[in-house]
């Protein structure tokens, strides 16, 4: 009994940290609709700043808590600076474009932190006066964790007072409910947003600095926390502080007791929980229906156009690409092969985002399933390459068929997070099912047979298959299917009333996108010779999103240009310098600022003006 109590208390201490970080995220999202990928970076830098201050001043209780507060405030200032310098310029860009900007910030912050604090893990000092433990029913329990448990509700209470008893809080709540109306009533939204970013990032920094006495500060903290914080926000219901609190408590307890019952399930337990909650409750635990954010590209003013002479242009490009082996060396051909594969991967995601208004955070699931489909056929059945390649889209399509049925029943960020949950579940299966998938050591020896082993031959094969798939995707976009999908995106209600079964079309789009991504994955497996769970992991999904957003979501050619630019940038910068994340991040931020509609959007803007 006493053991269970202490286990529950441990869960509460975990929950407190989760709540601090995710409350900041939910506030920022609720007001600005920005999916702030950099939230975890503020948590990490908060921890580093906290570590430095605590090493210097943390010898006394006043010094320690002063250091924590100072680190939190510093993160708030950085957050406000990011709003003024970057995000403010993007409010008129397509929704989610800020996501790309914050992703650039993540990369920049990672390298700057490594540069400033060095690569080694830093173990900070313990909180003075709270070093020991007390016995609770004969079980020792750390004092500091007790303080954390108290801090959670305290911060919740303070935030509640701030939002319900101050004028600023009232304005923020007003902006959360109706941004346009609030600004029409004379409230400067820019200043409000700066304040909100300050608050949100300060909370992230506070959560980070409070970790110093519990664990060492590392360069991996940012990605570790940001996904979990998103889960909490979505499970709780977006924009709902009490929801975030409740979700933190549940997830904290789930982790504390989950490891007792199934020690092996740690990888996926949080995502399983999120999937169950989202399937049962469309808006999270405490979210309200009217607060569901439209993540569809609502600012699309020009409908997707077929473009004049698109056909000849595409054929000319294809001919040019097909001629590449005449001049390019082996490595350039390999890069081009990867670009073509990634272009199909990005285009398949674009089908969901651009046409369906469905932003997926887990698109790598289908890419990876395709890769695994091919690899498993080769490894377990000794299938020849053509058969294995045919199997890739089938397995991915089947996966998407199942997951899609659940996902399209949700919208906005709830849809996005449900796709992420499915991706994580698929990932953990690949990661843990050793007998079949080889676990994290992957499947090796998936090389093309002799007739396709030449770099040029495999490139032509890839170009042919991807070109064909891209042509089909484009056909779909301008077929009645694509129009129905866009009708559902722009006005679900009107689409329903003219007899379009929006959900069914979205489901079909999901399966189509999954199938296309699966083909890309299968080709990727043979290009690399091996598959690993990393192909299904979050960074792969993020890469796809970045490619789509970089190219611009309003044009069919966008994802192709995005894949080309992103992949070449990444691979070339990576071989030039160890600071490639800094360089890449800065380039992304610059691109976002210069081309707020994506590269292709910018180019077609010029053409229209001319």
């Amino acid at each position: 009994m006493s053991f269970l109590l202490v286990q529950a208390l441990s869960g509460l201490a975990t929950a407190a940290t989760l709540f601090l970080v995710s409350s900041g995220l939910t506030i920022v999202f609720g007001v600005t609709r920005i999916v702030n990928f950099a939230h975890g970076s503020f948590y990490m830098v908060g921890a580093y700043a906290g570590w430095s201050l605590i090493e210097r001043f943390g010898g006394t209780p006043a010094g320690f808590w002063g250091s924590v507060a100072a680190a939190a405030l510093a993160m708030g200032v950085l957050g406000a600076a990011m709003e003024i310098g970057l995000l403010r310029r993007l409010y008129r860009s397509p929704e989610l474009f800020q996501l790309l900007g914050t992703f650039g910030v993540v990369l920049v912050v990672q390298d700057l932190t490594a540069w400033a604090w060095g690569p080694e893990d830093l173990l900070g000092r313990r909180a003075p006066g709270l070093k020991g433990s007390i016995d609770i029913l004969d079980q020792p329990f750390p004092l500091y964790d007790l303080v954390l448990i108290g801090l959670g509700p305290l911060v919740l209470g303070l935030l509640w007072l701030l939002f319900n008893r101050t004028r600023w809080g009232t304005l923020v709540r007003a902006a959360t409910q109706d941004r346009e109306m609030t600004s029409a009533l004379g409230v400067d939204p820019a200043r409000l947003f700066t304040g909100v970013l300050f608050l949100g990032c300060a909370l992230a920094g506070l959560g980070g600095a409070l970790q110093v006495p519990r664990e060492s500060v590392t360069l991996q903290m940012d990605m570790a926390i940001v996904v979990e914080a998103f889960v909490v926000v979505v499970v709780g219901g977006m924009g709902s502080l009490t929801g975030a609190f409740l979700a933190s408590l549940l997830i904290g307890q789930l982790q504390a007791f989950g490891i007792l019952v199934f020690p092996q399930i740690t990888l996926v337990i949080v995502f399983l929980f999120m999937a169950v909650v989202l399937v049962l409750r469309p808006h999270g635990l405490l979210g309200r229906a009217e607060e569901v954010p439209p993540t569809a590209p609502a600012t699309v003013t020009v409908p997707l156009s077929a473009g004049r002479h698109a056909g000849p242009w595409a054929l000319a490009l294809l001919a040019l690409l097909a001629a590449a082996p005449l001049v390019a060396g082996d490595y350039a051909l390999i890069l081009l092969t990867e670009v073509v594969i990634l272009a199909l991967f990005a285009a398949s995601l674009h089908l969901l985002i651009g046409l369906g208004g469905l932003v997926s955070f887990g698109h790598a699931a289908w890419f990876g399933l395709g890769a695994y489909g091919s690899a498993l056929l080769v490894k377990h059945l000794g299938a020849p390459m053509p058969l294995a390649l045919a199997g890739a889209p089938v397995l991915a399509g089947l996966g998407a068929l199942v997951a899609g049925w659940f996902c399209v029943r949700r919208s906005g960020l709830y849809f996005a997070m449900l796709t992420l949950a499915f991706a994580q579940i698929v990932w953990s299966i690949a990661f843990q099912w050793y007998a079949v998938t080889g676990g994290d050591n992957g499947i090796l020896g998936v090389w093309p047979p002799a007739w396709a082993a030449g770099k040029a031959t495999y490139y032509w094969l890839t170009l042919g298959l991807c070109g064909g798939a891209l042509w089909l995707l484009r056909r779909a976009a301008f077929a009645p299917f694509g129009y129905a999908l866009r009708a559902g995106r722009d006005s679900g209600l009107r689409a329903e009333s003219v007899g379009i079964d929006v959900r069914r079309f979205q489901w079909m789009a999901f399966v189509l996108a999954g199938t296309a991504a699966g083909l890309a994955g299968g080709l990727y497996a043979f290009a690399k010779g091996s598959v690993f769970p990393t192909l299904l992991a979050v960074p792969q999904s993020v890469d796809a999103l970045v490619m789509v957003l970089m190219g611009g979501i309003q044009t069919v050619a966008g994802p192709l240009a995005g894949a080309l630019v992103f992949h070449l940038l990444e691979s070339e910068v990576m071989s030039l310098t160890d600071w490639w994340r800094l360089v890449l991040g800065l380039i992304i931020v610059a691109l976002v600022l210069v081309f707020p509609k994506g590269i292709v959007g910018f180019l077609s803007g010029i053409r229209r003006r001319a």
Partner: protein
Amino acid sequence: MKHRHPTASPLAKLLRPAALGATLSIAIAAAALTAGPAAAQSAKEPVKFSGAPVRVGEINSYTGLPAFTIPYRQGWQLALEEINAEGGVIGCCELQVVSRDDAGKPDDAVRVAQELVTNEAVDVLAGTYFSHIGLAVADFAARNKMPFVAAEPLTDAITWSKGNRYTFRLRPSTYMQAAMLVEEAAKLPAKRWATVAPNYEYGQSAVAWFRQLLKEKRPDVEFVAEQWPVQGKLEAGPTVQALAAAKPDAIFNVTFGADLAKFVREGEGRGLFRNRKVVSLLTGEPEYLEPMKDEAPEGWIVTGYPWDQIDTPAHKAFVAAYTARFKESPKAGSIVGYITMKAVAAAITKAKSANAEPIVDALAGLTIDSPVGPVTFRASDHQATMGAYVGTTTVKDGRGTMKDWRYADGANYLPPDDAARKMRPAE
């Protein structure tokens, strides 16, 4: 003869100004770094090379895991400078290294390996830290018939179940390190054991080997609890509590890095280690022990690298050269990087050729003298006999270190040649 003029990709040509800038800044940084006595010495009497340089393509997770890979890089840099100052390889040729980051992803590593082979015309591949990346590059090496010296990956698969003709591995494998610890664990009176290990192949095979080998030596032990935290995301409080609840006599730990620090802190706070022996993999390596400062665990039985206490002349010379060159103490990664490059050079010299097949033949059975003693790449399974130091952790002068240690020669902890050969796929 292979052509020696790397062809740049079209984009590289486009990016030439940028590349120039980067090269320039790297050159400046290198110049600043090399302002040590060693560099001054070699500058006095530059070595003349009569033959074409031999090129090594080196890949590691420099941005993914800088805390471990930067000391490793400094290790091979030191070795490289020594090799070239002593006349290079085959007595005629400069050894050149082209180093690349793999971003911690196996598919990036394969692309980088391809770039090194086709654009940089390297003759040997070396490096990698993560097991899955090591395996991906090993498979690439076999496919492209390139010799590959895997420096740091620990997985048994790279030399056994997925071993191939072209791949050799230096560092003692998971099996070897587990076997070294079992020897000590079997001497303990403890009968009830609990295990905690990260939830991936390394953790799982470490625990599996430990259980199997300990049961063989001590049929009376039982394993009463196991915890499998996610690598990098250990929930310290609940994990410690769950282990304590099983009331084990001893604990086998495989967690490392940030997870280990959390585990130690929380375990001390909750009295998990009171009256319990802990046997722990790799914890004695400075990479893991030093960040914990005075909170490093006391009395754990570990494998590691007590660099400051090893007083063989060869090792003392290595430590002196390393600290003079980089102004910091060596880590376990440093010695691995150093021996890796020395082994590559020795293989090339033994082969008297920069071609793949002779180098592979030379690597099989190659013995070199290293700062830790003689190291042989076994011809049977391509595993090096580099060992590890087994001892007990302690805190001295406010930092963690090892005491009562001995060098466990890897040769004594490997299955016999026949058995090892049987575990490898047929060639």
